[in-house]
């Protein structure tokens, strides 16, 4: 059974890459998303057979979760106006980042033994995923017009740096704390990572948002790839890293199209990057 699942994951990953490749040209772009869509369907269906997925209630929750999340996204995605697309991408991307962070949290809460390397990768994935989550939500709110002012205040760079430093420090403590991770510590850690995403995005103006969203897209991809390492799941690993690399490059291309280096977009009012955008 494990063999079939791995073959299916690999096939899905190939479909993603081919699909993405086709999306890079206007002529084949539509076919590309359909191929990638089938890859997703295969991977999702096969996962129901995954040996680690067990327990009736868990199955029920999975189906319910897919129903709620998928249904809402389908509804909003179909209804949203064409001009509002960028913020919807930000929103969906943020959801992916949040999901990646969630996997990491579940893995860290688990009672089974993880080597400290895996634990560290899980922690790293939580930081990146959480930053992408809260950052994307701010980007969404800005483009949607919910937040109109770019918040800038004195010492902002230092405060952001401090928050990031605290997050990383807690992350390192968690990485080395063995199988039993303190729940309160984990909560504080998650909240700090989320706060950093918010603080990092708030000072960036609306016009720069597409570049920022693209960056968070790359970050989410990276977080997903790291989760693939944690769960030892080839589909997650390949797809995540491909998106991480493609997204990083796309971010640079978009910044170049605006005649601004990416550092200018991020650092002009800000002194610290997320530190994870080079995959």
């Amino acid at each position, binding site marked *: 059974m494990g063999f079939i699942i791995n073959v299916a994951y690999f096939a899905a990953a190939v479909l993603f890459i081919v699909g993405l490749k086709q999306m890079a040209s206007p002529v084949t772009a539509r076919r590309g998303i359909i191929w990638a869509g089938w890859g997703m369907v295969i991977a999702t269906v096969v996962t129901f057979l995954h040996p*680690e997925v067990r327990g009736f209630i868990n199955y029920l929750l999975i189906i319910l979760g897919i129903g709620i999340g998928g249904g809402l996204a389908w509804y909003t995605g179909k209804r949203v106006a064409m001009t509002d697309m960028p913020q919807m991408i930000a929103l969906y991307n943020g959801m992916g980042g949040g*999901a990646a962070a969630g996997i990491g949290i579940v893995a860290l809460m688990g009672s089974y033994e993880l080597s400290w390397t895996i634990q560290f990768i899980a922690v790293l994935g939580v930081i990146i995923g959480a930053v992408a989550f809260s950052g994307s939500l701010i980007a969404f709110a800005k483009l949607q017009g919910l937040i109109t002012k770019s918040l800038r205040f004195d010492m902002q760079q230092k405060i952001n740096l401090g928050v990031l430093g605290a997050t990383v420090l807690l992350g390192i403590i968690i990485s080395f704390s063995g199988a039993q991770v303190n729940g309160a510590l984990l909560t504080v850690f998650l909240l700090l990572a989320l706060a950093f995403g918010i603080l990092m995005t708030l000072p960036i103006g609306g016009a720069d948002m597409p570049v920022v969203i693209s960056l968070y897209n790359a970050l989410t991809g990276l977080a997903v790839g790291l989760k693939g390492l944690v769960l030892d799941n080839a589909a997650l690993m390949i797809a995540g890293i491909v998106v991480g690399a493609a997204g990083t490059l*796309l971010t640079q291309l978009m910044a170049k199209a605006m005649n601004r280096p990416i550092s200018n977009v991020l650092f002009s009012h800000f002194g610290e990057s997320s530190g994870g955008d080079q995959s």
Partner: protein
Amino acid sequence: MLAAFTGYEVISKVPVILHTPLMSGSNFIHGIVLVGTMVALGHAETTAQMWVGFIAVILAAGNAVGGYVVTERMLEMFKSSKGAK
């Protein structure tokens, strides 16, 4: 590493008009995180794990489905303009 190189190779020559659809498309592809959340929720043991896993599944499903719908709609516009030619 190979995957990272593939990502680079795929993106390196892209017309500017396709930047946003491509971003959306790659956004859809990391919706594969859904598989990971399913596995995570699948072996959840405690109630807290189930809650986090459940929320993660909802978020991931939103990422995958939303990403697909949005990308498809965006690329639909390319099709109509190509079809007229």
